């Protein structure tokens, strides 16, 4: 085995030292000279209009530069499409500071810019704004019968397939059946880094924009269209992003604010949201779901029906795939899926880790547990009986699917066979013990992306792509891919991202980055490889003179013949012999639609959970989790494992803690801070085991990767809910399961 064989190796994160030493710089940390600070002011009402803004006292403060509001914002782009970012849903995007209308509570209504962060904050606090409130509606309960089916929706949205078979009749005729509603409230992404943008004003309208985003190009095209800037005038840089989880897919308010202020004041400006303001934009929508299942005498599914209704704003129709999974995770000939939205006076929801699937898999997988009990079957056995070898939504086979292996290996590792199926039958000391399981399915997708490679005469390879690393490990795995394909030590590879000057890449989301950027990097490396071979063949006495590209390999810093490794040229020497300081190549990669068209491309997982419940007090501890994931090839088991560990923590959070509470009197989220919006702390997390069941799949993409950032979350909340039922005999169908739900 060569030393430069990196794919599949558990390398430490290449950006690790910078992150642990505190030298990794995030958007609000570029302390450019002459920086002014902006502070956002938000609406206290959910609907109505601004009737008066009195900025006189604020402007009288020495050091305050300007108060921006709808009253003084210059003429900007007129058309809705100028405000639409790459992943905007259908509708009319919110325009900050556009007019007097208030569309949601916490709406940004003004920006105060001052010399210091403290002065801006103080000045914002004394700005007098008068509002006239109008009646608002923020409660989805009032919209139960008023849902509507959305149109085409945003990128990645697929409307549910039409019904198949005879789902109503078969449900009625089923031997056993269930019909239940499942509910979860609003959740906010709350990445650790608060949204911030530092705009460095370079003169003559030229800007360097350091933005917290999951896609520098998306931020760039937004500000270019809104402010009429050229590509050269608006460079967006995003080297490190302190968590995204979907919140950075769309440009957020502070980007607009900071660019506006910098252009108007002709000065560098930073705007950072507060934690409280992090509740002023997208969220996972409050969703009501109904699942009806029926079984035949042999324990096969007779019918599956799944309907979802969730909130959206008055101005955009946010969509996500909530119910489609229920038509493909299990084999069933009779399926009916429904999906509706309801408009409320809230901000538009936004993709949040495994959007739709985290939600849909909760409802489906709790319903499957209920169905298993109703039919007198073991929940795992019930799932295996109804295993889908084919995607019935698309009527296509899977390019690869090792969910069965996930079930078996996960169950074995967990010790599922020790489970006594009767609820309330297992105890440890005073605690009730419950075992639950669930699973899920997620898209394996690839988007068009580009990469550029540049090899210098000292043997250092620079690789560039305008993608992002929100903590997923992109820096590391792309370094591995490039090192592998050009046979260089990882130390010789410098992967750079997060800059609009680099080759185009999609936003980092949808678990598609490894596939999309990975393939582009591979292609660029191969393109450079061909150039290197040609150059090597020009070298005097080259041992590779007659070699074709398929005859050579790049290993251990050498270009050599596959069949006669002794015939080799040192790669660095090739660049030196070229007489140039570096050799470069770039490439793009797109999915091979021809190859893929006959297949359904998906990743799967199976989760097994042990909970311990103190029944008197209602407290729940998730003491053990085994998460078995089949997501194609794993480039780095280290970073991939971390993605799944994090997903489990997210699932625990979703199951037991997370909810943004709305007070409908005010149409306002009330727990809008990190003290009252609970996510787990270290003491909440116990043993988590991650298993990867690797799949060989050359159909999904040439690297065989399916993406790992989201699939691990699926089924976790359901497995916990099911384990709580097994422990206590109490079926909770509304998340989060806070202790009062068990009293």
């Amino acid at each position, binding site marked *: 085995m060569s030393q430069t064989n990196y794919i599949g190796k558990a390398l*430490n*994160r290449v950006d*690790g*030292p910078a*992150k*642990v*030493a*505190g*030298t*990794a710089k*995030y958007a609000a940390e570029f*302390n450019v000279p002459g920086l002014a600070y902006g502070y956002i*002011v938000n609406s*206290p*009402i959910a609907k109505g209009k601004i009737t008066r803004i009195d900025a006189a*006292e*604020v402007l009288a*403060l*020495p*050091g305050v530069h300007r108060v921006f509001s709808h009253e003084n914002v210059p003429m900007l782009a007129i058309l809705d499409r100028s405000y639409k970012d790459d992943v905007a849903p259908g509708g009319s995007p919110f325009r900050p500071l556009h007019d007097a209308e208030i569309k949601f509570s916490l709406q940004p209504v003004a920006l105060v810019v001052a010399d*210091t*962060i*403290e*002065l801006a904050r*103080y000045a914002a*606090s*004394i700005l*007098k704004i*008068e*509002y*006239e*409130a109008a009646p608002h509606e923020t409660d989805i309960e009032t919209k139960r019968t008023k849902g509507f089916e959305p149109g085409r929706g945003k990128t990645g949205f697929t409307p549910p397939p039409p019904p198949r078979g005879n789902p109503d009749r078969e449900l009625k005729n089923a031997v056993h059946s269930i019909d239940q509603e499942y509910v979860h409230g609003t959740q906010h992404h*709350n*990445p*650790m*880094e*608060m949204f911030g943008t530092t705009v460095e004003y370079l003169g003559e309208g030229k800007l360097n924009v350091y933005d917290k985003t999951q896609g520098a190009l998306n931020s760039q095209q937004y500000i270019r269209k809104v402010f009429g800037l050229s590509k050269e005038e608006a460079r967006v840089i995003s080297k490190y992003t*302190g*968590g995204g*989880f979907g919140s950075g897919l769309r440009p957020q308010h502070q980007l607009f604010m900071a660019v506006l202020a910098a252009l108007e004041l002709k000065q560098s400006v930073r705007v950072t949201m*507060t*934690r409280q303001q992090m509740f002023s934009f997208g969220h996972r929508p409050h969703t009501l779901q109904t699942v009806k299942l029926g079984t035949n005498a042999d324990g096969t599914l007779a019918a599956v029906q799944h309907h979802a209704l969730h909130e959206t704003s008055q101005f955009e129709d946010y969509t996500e795939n909530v119910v489609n999974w229920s038509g493909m995770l299990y084999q069933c000939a009779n399926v009916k899926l429904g999906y509706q939205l309801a408009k409320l006076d809230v901000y538009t929801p936004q993709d949040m880790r495994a959007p739709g699937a985290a939600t849909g898999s909760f409802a489906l997988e709790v319903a499957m547990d209920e169905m298993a009990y109703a039919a007198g079957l073991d929940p795992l056995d019930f799932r295996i009986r109804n295993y889908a070898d084919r995607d019935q939504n698309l009527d296509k086979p899977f390019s690869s699917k090792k969910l069965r292996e996930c079930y078996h290996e996960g169950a074995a590792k967990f010790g599922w066979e020790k489970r006594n199926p009767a609820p309330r039958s297992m105890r440890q000391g005073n605690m009730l013990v419950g075992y639950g399981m669930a699973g899920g399915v997620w898209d394996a997708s690839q988007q068009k992306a580009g990469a550029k490679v540049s090899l210098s005469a000292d043997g250092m390879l620079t690789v560039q792509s305008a993608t992002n690393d929100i903590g*997923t*490990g992109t820096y590391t795995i792309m370094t591995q891919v490039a090192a592998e394909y050009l046979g260089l030590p990882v130390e010789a590879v410098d992967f750079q991202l997060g800059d609009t000057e680099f080759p185009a890449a999609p936003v980092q989301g949808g678990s598609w980055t490894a596939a999309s950027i990975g393939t582009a990097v591979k292609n660029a490396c191969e393109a450079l490889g061909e150039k290197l071979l040609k150059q090597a063949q020009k070298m005097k006495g080259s041992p590779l003179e007659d070699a074709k590209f398929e005859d050579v390999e790049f290993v251990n810093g050498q270009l050599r013949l596959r069949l006669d490794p002794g015939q080799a040229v040192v790669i660095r020497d090739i660049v030196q012999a070229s007489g140039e300081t570096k050799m470069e190549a770039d490439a793009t990669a797109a999915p091979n639609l021809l190859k893929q068209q006959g297949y359904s491309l998906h990743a799967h997982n199976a989760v097994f959970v042990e909970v311990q419940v103190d029944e008197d007090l209602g407290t729940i501890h998730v003491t053990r989790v085994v998460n078995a994931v089949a997501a194609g090839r794993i480039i780095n088991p280290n970073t991939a*494992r*971390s993605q799944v*560990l*994090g997903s*489990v*923590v997210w699932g625990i959070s979703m199951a037991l803690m997370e909810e943004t509470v709305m007070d409908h009197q005010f149409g306002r989220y009330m727990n809008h*801070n*990190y003290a009252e919006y609970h*996510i*787990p*702390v*270290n*003491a909440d*997390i116990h*043993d*988590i085991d991650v298993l990867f069941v690797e799949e060989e799949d050359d159909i999904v993409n040439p690297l065989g990767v399916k993406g790992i950032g989201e699939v691990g979350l699926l089924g976790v909340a359901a497995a916990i809910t099911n384990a709580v039922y097994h422990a206590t005999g109490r079926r909770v169908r509304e998340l989060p399961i806070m202790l009062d739900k068990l009293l």
Partner: protein
Amino acid sequence: MPETFTTSSGAAANASLPPTRAVKLRINGVEKQLQLAPWTTLLDALREYLDLTGTKKGCDHGQCGACTVLVDGKRINSCLTLAVMKEGADITTIEGLGTEDNLSPLQQAFVDHDAFQCGYCTPGQICSAQGLLNEGKAKTAAEIRELMSGNLCRCGAYSNILSAVQEVLDNQKA
């Protein structure tokens, strides 16, 4: 009649803003001379006035631990103290624990155990773990979990944070 609202904190506008004064802070063993108003927190002093951006702002209200630094060896939330209140104290930030080329044992353990993903809570976690080691109270895994619970990690790296801290603690004992 529509309801009307007026907002603003109700604070009086005060044209005479707080005067700045010379503030001497000893950070990572180095004396820093600053000109600050009293309303500057230690966190903002580090990030906005001294370019020590390794210390992170995750909530600015003592609810996340990202801003953790060591003051006289004890971990605190730098967002909830004023810079002027820390004159005369010994302040250690993540930059003072080690450098990229010379990582402290905790920093190295965090890398080795992949004890972070996005990295934003990481300096706070490491400073907090250093404080935990200095305290000498945590001995078991359960105690480490509890005493590392003042630092949120939204990426959910808690298991790996535990192993990293445990490793350094065990090595210390050995």
